[in-house]
């Protein structure tokens, strides 16, 4: 089944899952004075892609892989616990589950027969990459396409937040994303390959400042972005 249009729809920032409300940690990095211009934004995006981008894409791909398995709910439960163990900052666990809930609302409305009922997470909500994996499988995307859309989303959201937070020229920010396209493809391929292995061997790329910034950001009374 040709999936090109599906891939574009799922990778589109206008997909109604509230992604525009999140800066992917950029707002806190800007406030800490660590991202100030186009150059530091580019470095931020590169580091985010290699850490949160890789992990999120690998878990989306692993959830996609779990869909046709007989013990799908148990497999998704293992992925949920493994992703928790890779998300040391409670603020980031909360954000992932909140974004998962938002994506789940869209998924249930669009693909009512997809097996979203097997997702773990209870009232807190399922982790966003797991929902994304199920949703991409329902849309008929391949595992690599699933990882690609997930990795893409981790950098495009932060990049457009950069335009708003720093008043950067949107043409120049788009040029940053174009320059990152190759790295995004490679990250997605690595993530899809990793999903062949057992859940405990999935990537666990850590970013100390992402954890530290997230915990600082969640204490602010006024902020432009939810994360």
């Amino acid at each position: 089944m040709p999936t090109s249009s599906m891939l574009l729809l799922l990778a589109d920032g206008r997909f109604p899952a509230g992604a525009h409300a999140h800066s992917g940690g950029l707002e806190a990095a800007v406030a800490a004075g660590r991202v100030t211009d186009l150059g530091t934004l580019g470095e931020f995006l590169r580091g985010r892609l290699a850490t949160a981008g890789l992990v999120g894409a690998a878990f989306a791909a692993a959830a996609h892989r779990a869909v046709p398995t007989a013990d799908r709910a148990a497999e998704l439960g293992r992925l949920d616990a493994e992703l928790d163990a890779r998300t040391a900052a409670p603020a980031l666990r909360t954000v992932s589950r909140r974004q998962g809930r938002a994506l789940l609302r869209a998924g249930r409305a669009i693909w009512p027969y997809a097996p979203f009922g097997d997702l773990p997470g209870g009232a807190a909500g399922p982790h966003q990459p797991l929902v994304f994996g199920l949703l991409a499988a329902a849309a008929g995307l391949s595992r690599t396409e699933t990882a690609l859309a997930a990795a893409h989303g981790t950098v495009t959201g932060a990049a457009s937040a950069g335009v708003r937070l720093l008043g950067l020229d949107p043409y120049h920010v788009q040029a940053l994303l174009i320059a990152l396209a190759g790295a995004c493809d490679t990250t997605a391929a690595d993530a899809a390959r990793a999903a062949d292995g057992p859940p405990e061997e999935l990537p666990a790329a850590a970013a100390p400042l992402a954890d530290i910034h997230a915990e600082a950001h969640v204490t602010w009374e006024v902020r432009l972005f939810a994360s």
Partner: protein
Amino acid sequence: MRAAARLVARTDGRGRTVLAELRGEPPLLLRQVPGRDGGVTVYVVGGAAGPLAGDDLRLDVEVGRGAVVRVHTVAASVALPGRPGAVSRMRVRASVAEGASLHWLPEQLVAATGCAHLADSRVMVADGGTLLWRDELICGRYGEQPGDVVVRTTVDHAGRPLLRQSLAVGPDVPGWSGPAVLGGAPATGSLLLLDPARPAAPPEVDLGGPVAGTASRERPGAVARLPLAGDAATLWTATAPDADTLRQHLTPRLPGPVPAPT
């Protein structure tokens, strides 16, 4: 160089920890020093420089029911380049039984220019076990850029995943020193505390930066205290301008009795 070392601790039935096995080979030698509180303290004594790329080192630690073990190293280990294309490995495999306690508090790992090193630790802690585990990485000797290093820490608690983190630095790692990962800090690390007598501490963060009321002083580095999922354990994660500041950030400060960090 290939080397393996092994440490097995048990209790003697009167509440004292004894070493049922303690063996190593250069450059991975183990030395017991007088302990306190009935526990044992063991130092890893580097019998050679390095690790050098190509070295393959493995340390197994087994802490049996009720035993108390503290492991230190006598000096920082400096990962150095070796044969072109070769990687050095230091693998630690540890298990901590119910009622047992392991403090793993080595000196820092320093990533020298041109090194290629993997520090891979896997720890299984049974329900009712205690673990204090510190990883510290210095990116390059003074004024030097680091080679490629991965510090991977995998901890299971009561058969479930507790912590999985893999920090990568070096010229082959995109964005590692940038504002999403280390923000230019040359020192980074984490301290994990899992103690059945102590629930996870609530989150707390210190971003560093200017000290209120002073024009010139800066609190260096940044640190966050993070309760892990399940609220059984706490992780401190930090970045710092130097090894001393990092050590200060990764020394536990909690109300009540605190495990001695050093």
